């Protein structure tokens, strides 16, 4: 039952102890990645055949059978799906669309986009702006949410807590698009504090990144702070907290020394899964703020219907998510010593 660990957080290591467990999890991760690869291959080549792609790219007017054949040949789509009976030897299996276009992605060879650029290079270059935006948003957001949630937990069952929750629910009900548009209007247009969009490398990046980070943090407060508040309240209701209070510790000490520490376990293990995904950047916010990261790259590819790029981004995104699952498993075993005893 190797599959159970990540999803339920059960502690059944099976045979071979922790190392064996982690190795099994890694193998399972590879198996899932293969599944993703096959699924995307079916979607992108079987459901939507290269002929369809060619037709869409060429536009309705210029579609002739010859043009389609030429388009496919230029981009290497003129091969059979899984088995090439024209080739000889091993090439019968390797000189196919699956191996050339899909399995190659395991070697991080993504081929070329429709405009002829190398996708791997593009990804490497666009990774840094994405990270410059996503990492601060993640860290500051986590800290702000925990602080607010801790405040609400401290003032629980008072008007302050009630107003806080009401505000959280209201903030949750606003679409992320409005936060971005509102932020751009207020901070850039009305107060002229930072540029409305755009990006520059190096230290100049800060000027461009501040607004998206603020918007990203604020738009996450509603759901984040509310969720952490329930975690804190759950922790506050436990017996050891009552014992701590009975010993005569002040509420502040109880909250910071005991509750905060223990509540950080579910909060951090829950946050670990998204860390690798930070590489992918944020689709919406990057394209609104004109940041040349992976998120805006993906959006542009979707809008231009550049399937080679979309396929690569799907693969990378899945690989990073699976990495996040593995890290979650690992952090469970590291962070909570009780897990190992059972």
């Amino acid at each position, binding site marked *: 039952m190797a599959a159970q660990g990540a999803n339920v957080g059960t502690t059944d290591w099976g045979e071979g102890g922790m190392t064996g467990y982690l190795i099994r999890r890694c193998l399972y991760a590879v198996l*899932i*990645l293969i599944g993703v690869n096959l699924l995307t291959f079916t979607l992108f080549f079987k459901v*939507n055949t290269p002929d369809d792609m060619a037709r869409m790219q060429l536009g309705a007017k210029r579609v002739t059978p010859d043009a389609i054949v030429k388009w496919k040949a230029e981009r290497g789509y003129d091969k059979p799906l899984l088995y090439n009976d024209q080739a000889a030897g091993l090439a019968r299996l390797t000189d196919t669309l699956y191996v050339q276009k899909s399995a190659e992605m395991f070697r991080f060879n993504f081929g070329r986009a429709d405009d002829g650029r190398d996708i791997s290079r593009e990804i490497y270059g666009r990774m840094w702006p994405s990270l410059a935006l996503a990492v601060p948003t993640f860290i500051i957001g986590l800290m702000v949410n925990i602080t607010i949630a801790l405040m609400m937990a401290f003032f629980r069952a*008072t*008007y302050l*807590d009630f107003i806080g*929750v009401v505000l959280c629910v209201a903030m949750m009900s*606003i679409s992320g698009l409005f936060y971005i*548009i509102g932020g751009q209007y207020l901070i850039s247009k009305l107060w002229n504090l930072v540029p409305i969009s755009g990006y520059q490398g190096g230290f100049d990046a800060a000027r461009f990144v501040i607004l998206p980070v603020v918007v990203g943090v604020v738009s996450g407060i509603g759901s984040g702070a509310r969720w952490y508040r329930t975690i804190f309240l759950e922790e506050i209701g436990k017996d050891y907290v009552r014992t701590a209070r009975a010993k005569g510790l002040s509420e502040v000490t109880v909250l910071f020394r005991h509750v905060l520490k223990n509540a950080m376990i579910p909060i951090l293990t829950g946050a670990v899964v998204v860390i690798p995904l930070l590489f992918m950047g944020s689709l919406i916010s990057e394209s609104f703020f004109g940041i040349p990261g992976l998120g805006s790259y993906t959006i542009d590819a979707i809008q231009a219907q550049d399937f080679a790029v*979309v396929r690569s981004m799907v693969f990378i995104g899945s690989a990073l998510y699976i990495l996040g699952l593995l890290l979650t498993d690992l952090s469970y075993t590291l962070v909570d010593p009780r897990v190992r005893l059972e």
Partner: protein
Amino acid sequence: MMAVILWTDALVWVLILTIVAYGWHVSRHAHLAVPWRRVTHSPGGMSGLVVLLLLVLVGLLDSVHFRFKVDSPDTKTKTAYSTEVQSLLDVAAGHLRTRPEKTYSAPLATRSFAKELVESAEGKSLREFPRLRHGGSHLKDEALQQRDVFVTCLRALALALVAWCGVAGLIVLLVARHEQQRVADMWGEVWRGETAVPWRAVLSTLLALIAAVFTVTALSVDYHVFGTDKVGQDVLYLSLKSIRTGLVIGTLTTIVTLPFGVFLGLAAGYFRGWVDDVIQYGYTTLNSIPGVLLIAAAVLMMQVVLDTHADFFPTTEQRADARLLVLCVILGLTSWTGLARLLRGETLKLAQLEYIQAAHAFGVGHLRIIMRHILPNVMHIVLIALVMDFSGLVLAEAVLSYVGVGVDPSMKSFGTMINSARLEMARDPMVWWSLASAFVFMFLMVLSANLFADAVRDAFDPRARTDFRPWRLRMPRLPKLVKS
């Protein structure tokens, strides 16, 4: 007149019938009614429900479609129908739909937003803001616009107050009769907020709603209350039409997820072993693909299919509707994993319990155990998932439409409204009203859905109690940071 039944119309009405049947079923079984009674005790939930019901009413009016007969030269041989599909809402709000302006105009404006060449009385051509064709055209003197708006508002508010008094009086009368109390006592209880069902909150929400609806309706007769968009369409009308799209996506998507989520989740948790492994592998794989990308990929594929079979749909509305349905199915197919995982976990626990083992010992078959003993005990999870997902899906529609993989561009939705409003923000002076009204309507819908969903979750899931009891709230006291 020829009735047109769009796919989503049919599904929406089937859904309404199902809800009615479920309500009837619940009312006959006391143990099912208990949690629902708890829902009716939540002030936030009930206020949210009142707003939701109004939005659903608008959505349902917009889900009855037909095509009008048109006069054509050869009427004798066969009757011809207009290519335009209309709904009851279109008819009810006909004065909004049939009075377009040329281009942008601000809310309640009497003049256009853009300057135009106008021929003056003396024959000179001037560049000025022309009077609108319909907005405020009943005014002889534009200076009276403010007074006219003010008077109309006052009149509408007075009427709203009368209407509210009638409704509130009727509700209190019925409640008093049900509780066998004097009506005057009942009023007192409602006023002090002492009733079990929070009538005070419900009636206040109702007052605000009735006042808003009356005012907007009264003003919309002579003005464009929320202005007009680039091609001169009334923004209020666009917002009203968007409500249905939001509701359809929020509900039908979850309906699509149900069979997958419930069936696979129960099977994985009940049979365990290799069945569990296979199903878990399936949903972990699906889950690892970034959601927006998977949806985008699937929508792009479907677009190819719809484009190549364009002749399949007689009108643009029917094609847009098919795309909406496909979007719901795709969203559903990519989002059943969460529900399946929850149900699997719960079923794993339930299947260990003694009453299930007793059933095994009696030789009850698997299917019967699942249907009779497990499914009813996980229904609360299904129900909570159903209401909790709604608001997220409404929000997701806006994002997907922005990315370009949402509803058909010809379909009116919050996403398309926001999308077109983005360019308007860059204009100087700014065109803010489309965005503002999309914001208001969307916020109302999502907030009320969130409030109602919280109430349902609190009532059905005893572990997740988050509701406040206002009379138990204290004033906050700052902690003593220095120990005395």
